[in-house]
């Protein structure tokens, strides 16, 4: 029971921790405060509590596939917000002078707040449903609560490690690492959104296009970590692979456009 809750909470925490670390790395580059992050976390906890409390009602929507549709909507929105974050980050980074940087800095904080808020809404609601289910079972609650705290602690630690890792890189390399992580994250989100819509029967699925479970099983600890961080699936459908690649390409294209544009034209295009 202890190990179960450690792994469950760790999985849910890792995804948000990775996202927050990357956005914090961008934020520290701007030299801005972290008030936006506190706002996003508090807001995200509030909306996840709302989602968790309404879970059974949401489930009944769209002929009992409301959860999938809601999750797909959240994940698609997160993907779009990541594109906006990448855009504003690179426009600011390439602008060079403070006036333009300040202009993009505000927008970046707005988009980053919304991204984290939506990510916590989805991950947080699952954690809350899990915790609330055990709340009235006194015998389990202590074990489960300790497990959750350990899982949460490990998740946060990994996030801090990623943040320090990003900060140990210099100049262009740091930017490249940040954009790579954002691209993989966007791919993961679009792939998960597609899977949700397949599960709800909104998208037809032709079954798995490969099976890599003998190389890396989703049930192994490494597989679970890869799933939480990168959205690894041992048996993905073709639609998911296309969605994953689309997410990566969208972030890379946005980045290239943001870097190529003349800084003085930036305001008009943004």
């Amino acid at each position, binding site marked *: *029971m202890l190990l*179960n809750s450690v792994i*469950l909470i760790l999985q849910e925490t890792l995804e948000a921790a990775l996202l927050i670390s990357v956005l914090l790395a961008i934020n520290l580059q701007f030299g801005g405060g972290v008030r936006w992050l506190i706002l996003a976390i508090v807001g995200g906890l509030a909306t996840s509590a709302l989602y968790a409390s309404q*879970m*059974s009602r949401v*489930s*009944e929507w769209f*002929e*009992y*596939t409301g*959860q*999938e549709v809601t999750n797909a909507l959240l994940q*698609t929105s997160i993907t779009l917000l990541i594109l906006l974050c990448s855009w504003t980050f690179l426009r600011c980074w390439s602008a060079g002078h403070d006036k333009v940087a300040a202009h993009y800095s505000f927008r970046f904080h707005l988009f980053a707040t919304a991204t984290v808020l939506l990510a916590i809404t989805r991950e947080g609601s*699952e954690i809350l*449903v*899990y915790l*609330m*289910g*055990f709340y009235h*079972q006194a015998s389990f609650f202590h074990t489960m609560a300790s497990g959750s705290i350990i899982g949460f602690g490990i998740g946060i630690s990994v996030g801090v490690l990623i943040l320090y890792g990003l900060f140990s890189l210099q100049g262009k390399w740091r930017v490249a690492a940040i954009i790579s992580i954002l691209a993989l994250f966007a791919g993961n989100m*679009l792939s998960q959104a*597609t*899977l949700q*819509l*397949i*599960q*709800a*029967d*909104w*998208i*037809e*699925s*032709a*079954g*798995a296009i490969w099976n890599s*479970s003998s190389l890396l*099983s*989703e*049930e192994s600890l490494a597989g679970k970590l890869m799933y939480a961080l990168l959205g690894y*699936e*041992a*048996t*993905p*459908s073709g*639609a998911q692979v296309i*969605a994953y690649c*689309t997410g990566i390409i969208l972030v890379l294209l946005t980045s290239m456009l943001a870097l190529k544009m003349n800084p003085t034209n930036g305001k008009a295009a943004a």
Partner: protein
Amino acid sequence: MYPGLLLGIFSHAAIAATPVIEVEIRDHLFYPSEVRVPANTKVKLLIKNLDPTPEEFESYELNREKVISGNSKVVIFIGPVGPGDYPFFGEFYPNTARGVILVR
């Protein structure tokens, strides 16, 4: 963004033909714990959670994951998949809530 979306919406008309299989959750156990479904066919899984506590249906082999609140029911579409054994479990009570979908 989703080329299959339009096609997917129209496929709702075909739901009536999709076999429905009911599974219940009682005392953190799945009833039945062995579910037989036809191969290469899309199946609608109707899961009723009769426990007051929530559960999360999960199957790595089928790429399915869904929270089921206490005293409620959900629908999960699975397949089409080829013949084989596809285990599933309840992520919140993985020590007891276990089952397998036998695709034949």
